[in-house]
């Protein structure tokens, strides 16, 4: 246990130190920032898709809602980013629950399909109301968040400090998801995933816990969207279309659904790909799509999930063998 705690502390310190190490090269620092952003998004989605067993295909649309709300509050009403972001995240979560509430009664494929429908409707909406979203051309020159200082001064959150902020946001997300899944109702969520009828029969309000998981997950989608908009400085409906939802799902599924480290592993492997192979941007969809097919056929547990599974299987075999030899001795 002590060794594990040391490893966690080491990883946290590493995550906080990396932005400074990468700050020599702006391009690599940017890829690092994007990676942190996707750790936030994928960990948030994992709470729903991995632990509760509902695949939310409207995730990127909700992130878009959070992003557009925040950007409009900041650019039109002059609100501080730090006030606007929680409002945006809350808007994403509330709209997500209102839209998703009826579909939360559905299960499996039908839930996923209604997610696809909601995502498509949101994308169409983003194109359809240009006064809030800039339509197909999007919104550019989004200012960086300002950090207020004592006195009347403030300085823009830019460069290495933005990556640092993203690192903290990602770490907080992972921590919250970890705490949630270790709590009693986190275990209810897993029970719902494994057998919702049995869980219902045990007197646990399945729909209520699903709504709660959906709310928290959408909250992270919105927070990620707000950070995304201000980090990139540009958003368009294309940033939040169904392909983005699928990419985030792929990251979770490839890393390992329903594990804390899985989405992190998946993000580190997959998120930098489109930025590293920028000249080959046309092949990005082919690579990601093939990975989705590959993951569903050959790697349903994900990379980290498979590692965990084999380790547990070996431990079980080991203890079984030990039990047998002890039984033989006595």
């Amino acid at each position, binding site marked *: 246990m002590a060794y594990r705690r040391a490893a966690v502390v080491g990883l946290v310190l590493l995550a906080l130190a990396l932005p400074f190490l990468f700050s020599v090269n702006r391009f690599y620092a940017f890829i690092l920032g994007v990676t942190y952003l996707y750790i936030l998004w994928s960990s948030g989605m994992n709470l729903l898709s991995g632990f509760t067993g509902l695949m939310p295909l409207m995730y990127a649309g909700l992130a878009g809602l959070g992003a557009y709300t925040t950007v409009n509050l900041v650019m039109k009403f002059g609100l501080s980013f730090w006030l606007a972001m929680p409002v945006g995240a809350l808007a994403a979560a509330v709209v997500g629950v209102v839209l998703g509430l009826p579909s939360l009664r559905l299960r*499996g494929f039908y839930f996923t399909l209604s997610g696809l429908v909601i995502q498509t409707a949101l994308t169409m909406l983003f194109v359809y109301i240009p006064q809030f979203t800039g339509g197909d051309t999007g919104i550019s020159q989004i200012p960086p968040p300002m950090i207020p200082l004592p006195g009347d001064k403030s300085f823009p959150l830019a460069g290495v400090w933005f990556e640092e902020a993203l690192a903290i946001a990602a770490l907080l997300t992972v921590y919250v998801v970890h705490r949630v899944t270790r709590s009693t109702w986190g275990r209810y969520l897993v029970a719902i995933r494994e057998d919702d009828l049995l869980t219902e029969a045990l007197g646990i309000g399945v729909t209520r816990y699903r709504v709660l998981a959906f709310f928290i997950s959408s909250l992270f989608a919105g927070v990620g969207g707000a950070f995304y908009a201000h980090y990139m400085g540009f958003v368009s409906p294309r940033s939040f279309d169904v392909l983005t939802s699928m990419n985030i799902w792929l990251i979770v599924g490839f890393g390992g659904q329903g594990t804390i480290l899985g989405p992190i592993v998946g993000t580190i492997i997959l998120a930098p790909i489109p930025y590293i192979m920028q000249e080959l941007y046309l092949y990005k969809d082919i690579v990601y799509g093939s990975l989705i097919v590959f993951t569903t056929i050959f790697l349903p547990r994900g990379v980290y999930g498979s590692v965990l599974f084999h380790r547990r299987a070996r431990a079980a075999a080991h203890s079984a063998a030990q039990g047998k030899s002890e039984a033989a001795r006595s």
Partner: protein
Amino acid sequence: MTLESILLNGLAVITTGLIVGAIFSLVAAGVTIMYGTIWFPNAANGQFFMLAALLMWSLVVNWGLSPFLGAVVVLTGSIPFSLVLEKFLVRPFYNVPNRNIVYFIMTLGLAQIFAGAFTGTYGRWSDQYSLPAAWPGAIMLGPFPFPRTRQNREAAILRGVDVRRIYRFSFVLAMLVITMGGVLFAMAYGFDLTMAWTMAIIGFAIMIVGGPGSVLGSVVIGMIFGFTQAVVSLFASPTLAAFSYLIVMLIILLVKPSGLFAR
């Protein structure tokens, strides 16, 4: 509005409604056959539809084939293509519990592959594809009895039905019907690549409203949606029509997930 313009608009609505309705019905029939028999919710149906339309365009515009010959080539080609797909993507999952969601995710990936491939190839050559005008010819697929083996596979096996052969046959047939929709679409309209996703969603919307597994339902609802599209496009943006399908689909999903024409 003069009488003349009313008549012209009415005629336009009828022809557009018939053609669009036929295209919608074909795609939705393909989707519903796949889901009804194999439990295979094909999210890539819009991309297969687009593949057929693009091949049609290539054959007619680049190779100079006549539209009729082009249609024959594309339709024939779809059979070996779907046999290969069936062998590598559909068959390995026949024994997986909840295979419909596995299939759905997998075909979403497939759709992304095709979308990327289309923008990487056709997307560079042009952004609007249209064939020289030809008589479009509406194809009507009547309701016909279809072997329903999804409900109880074991019982079907016990009664000596070769389930796998029926699955393979249904898959090939469904792909053929979707390909037909794409061919007809390419003949009747100019199109662009974004149509693929829209068509995928509309196919699902019609399937859900009509009732998964019901070919009759998909033809009737497909026709209704087609005429809705034709009427709405007269007065407002076609986006509104698509929006209304999505809302109808959500309502049906929540109220009566088995669809209107469920047996």
